[in-house]
């Protein structure tokens, strides 16, 4: 992987730059025997928007199978990918180009495609994940048991890769919470009280992921998160969404896959005019069709 990453990096340089690169830059990084330092050569050569895209991936657990479509939507929600210099191409296509560019430089691997040849998922090598964590610094933090705490007001993106007891106070102190743009809670036991603190303290969130919590209700307070662009409530138990969701006019992505109790969408969904991806995931297996029928009657009625 390292050889490939360095070879790809060199192929982007003029031949005139090869010699100084091989004689100076490369040996400097290789000599201390730290592979991350060598890989960082490739990172250092990235344009800044791709640096952001890559560093953001440190939020995923190591070895995680990343859904590429949603990764691109996360980048867009954070403003790392913009359509300003893309002409008339849609921003998701620009995002895909960013992904392909990072893939070509070996920042991702193990790409899987769907039956139409669309890139579906990828993984990150552990060394690349270490590099992402290193370059993300305080900007993006993945909190693990016994690991880093949120204690810096430079932190913008946080994921929790540990079981959280949400009946206790959110483990992010207010001055830091209000600066956050991303909050991903990946596992844990849901407590309705958590909505109050999330909607009160995390006012600047662009991305909120509360997937797979067995959540029974979504609080109407959610309208307070008015900058929200990406809301993932997949794999939960709620039957409805509060009408106040329709006040989230900046929302681009609403992910509700595998919410098998969901009966209807809010009436005023047409108000969410920036919505680009409404994923209610109906493609269940046939043996689940009985359940599907029950769950979708409300979508029509």
């Amino acid at each position, binding site marked *: 992987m390292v050889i490939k990453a360095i070879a790809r990096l060199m192929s982007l340089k003029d031949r005139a730059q090869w010699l100084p690169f091989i004689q100076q830059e490369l040996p400097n990084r290789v000599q201390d025997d730290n592979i991350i330092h060598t890989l960082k050569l490739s990172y250092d050569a990235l344009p800044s928007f791709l640096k952001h895209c890559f560093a953001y991936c440190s939020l995923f657990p190591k070895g995680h199978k990343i859904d590429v479509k949603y990764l691109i939507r996360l980048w867009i929600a954070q403003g790392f990918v913009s359509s300003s210099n893309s002409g008339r191409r849609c921003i998701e296509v620009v995002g895909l180009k960013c992904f392909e560019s990072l893939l070509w430089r070996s920042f991702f691997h193990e790409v899987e495609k769907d*039956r139409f040849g*669309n890139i579906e998922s990828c993984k990150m090598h552990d060394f690349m994940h270490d590099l992402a964590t290193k370059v993300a610094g305080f900007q993006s933090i993945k909190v693990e048991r016994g690991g880093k705490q949120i204690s810096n007001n430079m932190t913008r993106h946080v994921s929790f890769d540990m079981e959280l007891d949400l009946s206790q106070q959110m483990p992010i102190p207010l001055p830091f919470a209000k600066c956050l743009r991303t909050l991903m809670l990946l596992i844990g036991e849901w407590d309705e009280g958590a909505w109050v603190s999330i909607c009160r303290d995390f006012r600047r969130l662009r991305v909120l992921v509360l997937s797979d919590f067995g959540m029974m209700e979504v609080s109407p307070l959610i309208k307070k998160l008015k900058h929200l662009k990406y809301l993932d409530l997949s794999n939960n138990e709620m039957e409805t969404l509060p009408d106040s969701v329709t006040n989230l006019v900046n929302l681009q992505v609403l992910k509700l896959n595998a919410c098998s109790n969901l009966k209807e969408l809010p009436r005023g969904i047409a108000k969410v005019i920036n919505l680009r991806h409404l994923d209610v995931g109906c493609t269940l297996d046939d043996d689940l069709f009985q359940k599907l029928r029950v769950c979708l009657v409300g979508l029509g009625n």
Partner: protein
Amino acid sequence: MPRGIGKLTSLQTLSCFVVARNTSPKSKMIDGLDELRMLNELRGSLEIIVKGYEGSCISEFQGAKLIDREYLQSLTVRWDPDLDNDLNIDLYDKMLQSLRLNSNLQELIVKDYGGMRFPSWVSNLSNLVRIHLEGCRRLKHIPPLDGIPSLKELSISYLDDLEYIDL
């Protein structure tokens, strides 16, 4: 679907659309399939689930203008099997017939369709790679597929009345 989904003209992903019948006053809040007509950005996969229908469905299916949805890769149309009865065969035929599709479509899945005829438009979907027909129990024959050079997979199951496939 709730009224107004057709106003979300930036929508690229709409994983499913539920068609229901207008039976109660409350159902004035429901929209027909023609809501899709303005959703020019739709792409990827779409599943249409018919949970209720009436005569007006035919014009709504036509009004969906799926023929203009050039980025759609996969379309599934499935009917609630409980709706099926011998009186509606003609309506099924007309519903599917009026659902004209764009020739860029790569995958077509039809489940629990109660009509006797399969629309001839399928022969024009020259980019189809996969056709899956399931539980279409009155279907007697499948139109010629020899004009679909990209077709790799034709799977049929529970087509109890199928007599022949044109080749």
